[in-house]
């Protein structure tokens, strides 16, 4: 089974479409959306509708902190993000809100756990940015492979047979064997707002048959997204982030 794992789409239609097309061209059996469909970007309705369509067609779709905030829950957001969230809320219909509110926080498929933030407390939106943060995620579940998002910077960590957790270096677009003597955690990067300095949409492909994970980057027309954001009057900070990729 080949999973295309997308997270942090953040209402960026151009990036979302580019990633879906790339995954489709490479061959994918099931799509997993790890949350944060909305927030920051100019196309929340389109992205939620698209996600709903994918979910109906068999995809996995989780709730992220921005999705939760869009349903009216009180999540902690930066002042700029709060401005964007108010704008987002004004665009969404009750149907959209109901869809977002109904999304699960985690989904497990065999030995793979999908979650938006950290597995140890999926509703607290903990950022997995280091080996010690990953350790908590490994401790709190049995899954051999944990795939998550929320951080917007790709990361790979492994927990060896003795339980030592280390961050592993990896290369983009190179299949990484998730050897079975270890457990693995990957932050798959962000589709709609990358923050590692590469202004391309990020996602990952998990092939459970070959047991390999591949981090990928897909170029997309960020200038179009930026223009829409400026027209919508969204905070310029987020537009610049898309151009810089950080």
């Amino acid at each position, binding site marked *: 089974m080949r999973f295309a794992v997308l997270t942090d789409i953040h209402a960026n239609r151009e990036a979302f479409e580019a990633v879906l097309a790339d995954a489709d061209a490479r061959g994918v059996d099931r799509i997993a959306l790890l949350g944060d469909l909305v927030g920051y970007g100019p196309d929340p309705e389109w992205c939620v509708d698209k996600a709903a369509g994918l979910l109906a067609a068999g995809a996995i779709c989780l709730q992220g902190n921005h999705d939760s905030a869009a349903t009216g829950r009180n999540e902690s957001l930066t002042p700029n993000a709060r401005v964007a969230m108010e704008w987002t809320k004004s665009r969404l219909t009750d149907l959209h809100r109901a869809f977002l509110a109904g999304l699960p926080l985690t989904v497990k498929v065999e030995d793979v756990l999908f979650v938006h933030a950290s597995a140890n407390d999926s509703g607290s939106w903990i950022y997995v940015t280091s080996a010690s943060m990953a350790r908590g995620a490994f401790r709190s579940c049995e899954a051999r492979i944990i795939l998550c998002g929320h951080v917007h910077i790709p990361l790979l960590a*492994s927990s*060896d047979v*003795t339980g030592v957790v280390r961050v592993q*270096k*990896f290369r983009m677009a*190179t299949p990484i*064997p998730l*050897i*079975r*003597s270890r457990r693995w955690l990957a932050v798959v990067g962000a589709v709609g707002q990358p923050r590692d300095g590469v202004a391309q949409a990020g996602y990952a492909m998990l092939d459970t048959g070959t047991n390999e994970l591949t981090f990928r980057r897909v170029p997309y027309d960020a200038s179009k997204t930026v223009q829409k954001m400026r027209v919508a009057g969204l905070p310029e900070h987020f537009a610049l982030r898309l151009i810089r990729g950080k």
Partner: protein
Amino acid sequence: MPILPYPGMEIDSFRLGEKLHKGAFATIWEVTHPDHLFPMVMKVPTIMDGFDGPTIVGFEVEQMIIARLSGPHVPRLIGVGDFSNMPYIVTEKIDGGSLLSVFERAPLPLSDLIDLASQIVLAVADLHRQHVIHLDLKPENLMLRPFCPESRGEMVLIDFGLSRHDQLPDLLSEEFSIPMGTYPYIAPEQYLGCRDDLRSDLFALGVMIYELATGTLPFGMPLKLKGVRKRLWRDPVPPRALRPEVPEWLQEIILRALEVDPKLRYQTAAQIAFDLSHPLQVKLTQRAMKVRQDSMGTVFHRWRAMRKIRSFGTPDSVAAQLASVPIICVAVDLSRENEQLAEILRWSVQRMLVTQPDARIACITVLKHERMGIDQTTDAEGNNLHVVRLVALRAWAVGIDLPEERLTFAVLEGSDPGSVIIDYATANHVSHIVMGARGHSAARRFLGSISAKVVAEANCSVTVIRVPERQKDVSQV
């Protein structure tokens, strides 16, 4: 606690036979499987207790890397088992046995030595092309396939427990603070903790060729890590001091491979292989002439310079390292009617050297045989055709500004020039062929295009140079 292997044990349909070898970190078993009817071996790591870090990680590394390797110079992987049951790796069995017994017979006769060294070096070049640095090259980890219908006596590298695949996570990098490797063969930068430099393997090759040539190890058999450090400043006894019949060019190759600073060594295994097969064109330096170890004064100065060194700098990725020192093969047609083409070809080569200043240029020309009949080896005046061509080839290359050791010449012979060029490029690990395409002549229509064949069949990049058609021909199209 993992399950322990025993004769007769069955696991994932593999049936264990005899225990072939018991090493410090693993046992090797003969195994059979109903779906695989050829001889196989199973390697099972010996894990002392749950916290035997080095063995476990080494095993994981081998499991990960061996699955990415292919070709005749590595054992074929059949199956792996993980720690939840019993960890193992099953590969084809290489019948020939390790080269340890050959190394015990060293010094070898020179012709055997050069032949064996070339085989080892080419196997390592093949590994590097697959992005893997072995980092534990030594006689025990080299095996020879037997000559039989399925194999042609190829050199096989085994044991990838310390290896590094430069596109995969390095599970070993942060695991241990002490350098990993085998003391007599470990390179200085590897001793300093670097695991990313393919030139570390070239150092180990130097140690092995030295051993084959002299019967002794250049840096002895240090028992403690402190003894390994000495090679940062103490140079080995020159091979010719131990065995005077070692030719100067071979001493040059060995001592260049053993340079302390990786930048001064050969940069790729393909370069060593090239020199081993072109001994007359090896540029001899002071290394070739050395008759004794450096004086204590020199060694003292080196000690002062080296005693606090932490690293020799970060090397490029394996692929980048290989690409930065290409071997460019220029196939030159020296016939009268193609003089203009030959000239344009030389300009192209000169331009390529601007962007690839470290390239090595191998100039070749093909002396075409008739398919049948007796070939003339002399022309009407009795001049040796081979020599005539070589002289012409050297004359053609005037203006290619390269030091002697990076510019070589060869006159090859054969009835099919395309195949001759391709075979030369394959045998010499050429990274790029540059050649001319003849115009739209009648000869080409009847004989077929040599360049088209080379482009289609060569195993490397090919650049084809053409004399531009005259303007009026173009306008007629």
